[in-house]
């Protein structure tokens, strides 16, 4: 028992000595971020014993409004990615350790936990381009504006928007987005962008069926299948006992139709007689 105690006591003394003189060697859970090497042996520069890392200690050297713009030494950052880090000035609360743990290696861009957009001031949450480069794929070629229409910042992909919920892009509707959504406004649509649907002909067809308000096409027409649209119309008429009006529209989808004046698509089908009224 005595021998045991002596061994333990001896080990304790050795541990205390090494902890005091070589704290980084004994305790450091991971390499420090580049730029913090000079304080690597001074744990208390960032840590307050039993109270964790206090933000004030980070803010002693790092000014949130200057992150990404100036270095800690006050030198202006001329690199092209400075905008990505400059969002720090828009954070509601300056709690650095929510995202950053210095002991994860030399890349501070690799946070210990996922960044949450709730940390940003509300005005910036819709300004995706303030921090993120826009997509350069064909799908987004004609899209600009509020990314939140289709994307959720909690989980960017897959996009929350499903075109099929509004209108099925079948083989008859495989066309440029701009055909139905001119002016890059995806909250609005028009069916008159294609010569297949000319306003006068459309009016004639609908009046024939005693449909006076046909400003909102997708309320009945969810695809090129006319039988489906007829069923939808009859079903609604039967339920409500009245002709459909614009006000009955799904509230999330707009109803304005814009008569498209462009002539690009008229050249595709020169024989208009083939597309005659079929009723």
């Amino acid at each position, binding site marked *: 028992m005595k*021998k*045991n105690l002596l061994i*333990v006591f001896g080990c304790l003394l050795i*541990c205390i000595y090494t902890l005091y003189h070589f704290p980084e060697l004994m*305790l*450091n*859970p*991971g390499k420090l971020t580049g730029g913090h090497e000079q304080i690597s042996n001074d744990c208390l520069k960032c840590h307050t014993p039993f109270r964790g*890392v206090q933000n004030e200690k980070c803010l002693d050297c790092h000014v949130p409004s200057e992150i990404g713009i100036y270095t800690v030494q006050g030198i202006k950052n001329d690199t092209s990615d400075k905008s990505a880090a400059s969002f720090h000035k828009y954070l509601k609360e300056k709690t650095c350790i929510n995202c950053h743990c210095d002991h994860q290696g030399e890349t501070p861009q690799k946070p210990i936990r996922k960044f949450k957009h709730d940390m940003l001031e509300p005005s910036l949450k819709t300004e995706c381009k303030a921090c993120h480069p826009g997509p350069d794929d064909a799908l987004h070629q004609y899209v600009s504006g509020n990314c939140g229409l289709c994307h959720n910042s909690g989980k960017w992909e897959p996009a929350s928007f499903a075109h099929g919920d509004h209108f099925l892009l079948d083989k008859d509707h495989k066309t440029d987005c701009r055909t139905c959504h001119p002016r890059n406004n995806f909250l609005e649509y028009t069916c008159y962008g294609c010569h297949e649907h000319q306003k006068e002909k459309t009016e004639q067809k609908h009046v024939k069926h005693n449909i006076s308000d046909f400003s909102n096409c997708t309320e009945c027409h969810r695809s090129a299948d006319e039988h489906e649209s007829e069923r939808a119309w009859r079903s609604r008429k039967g339920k409500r006992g009245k002709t459909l009006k614009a006000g009955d529209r799904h509230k999330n989808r707009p109803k304005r139709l814009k008569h498209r004046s462009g002539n690009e698509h008229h050249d595709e089908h020169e024989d208009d007689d083939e597309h005659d009224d079929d009723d």
Partner: protein
Amino acid sequence: MKKSVYREDILPFILLFSLLILLTLLADSLLHQRDIIWVGRYGGYFGTLLITLSFMYSLRKRKIIRFGTLKWFLVSHEYLGWFGGLMILIHGGIHFNGLLAWLAVAVMLVTIASGLTGRVLLIRSKNLLSSKRNDLLKSGMDLKEVEDRLFWDSTAVDLMKKWRSVHLPITSVFVLLALLHVIAVSAFWKW
């Protein structure tokens, strides 16, 4: 049939120890693949609890607690020690930072190896002494002669005493390092 020492004693020892390492590697790989390495932190808590519970054997042996049989507590000590060690190894993972933590893990592994060795020695000692004493007494030998004949055999029991003189200090050093690690983490953790 002559029992093979390798098969009866050494192989189980190797298998148990190897299984510990293998399961640690598998678990660490799984946690990293699924990106749920935070589970390892709780492995530390759970492993510490299991190892702490395993010390009830020591309390029972010293009659500080009196319920239950020694044999039951010894078996529990073995299982709790092994599983607790596994949890601690998963908690540590395959990372090599912070010498204090890794010293604690290294000494824990030595402790477990020591424990498995003691298990082998204890079983052998018990079997050897019991069967030989009975055989010698049945053959008509008197007690003194039996004792003389069992002299070398009784060193097996002395071997157990010596084994304990190694196992206890190693365990104490492990407990010390583990405590220092817990204190250090508490001191620098983000609370």
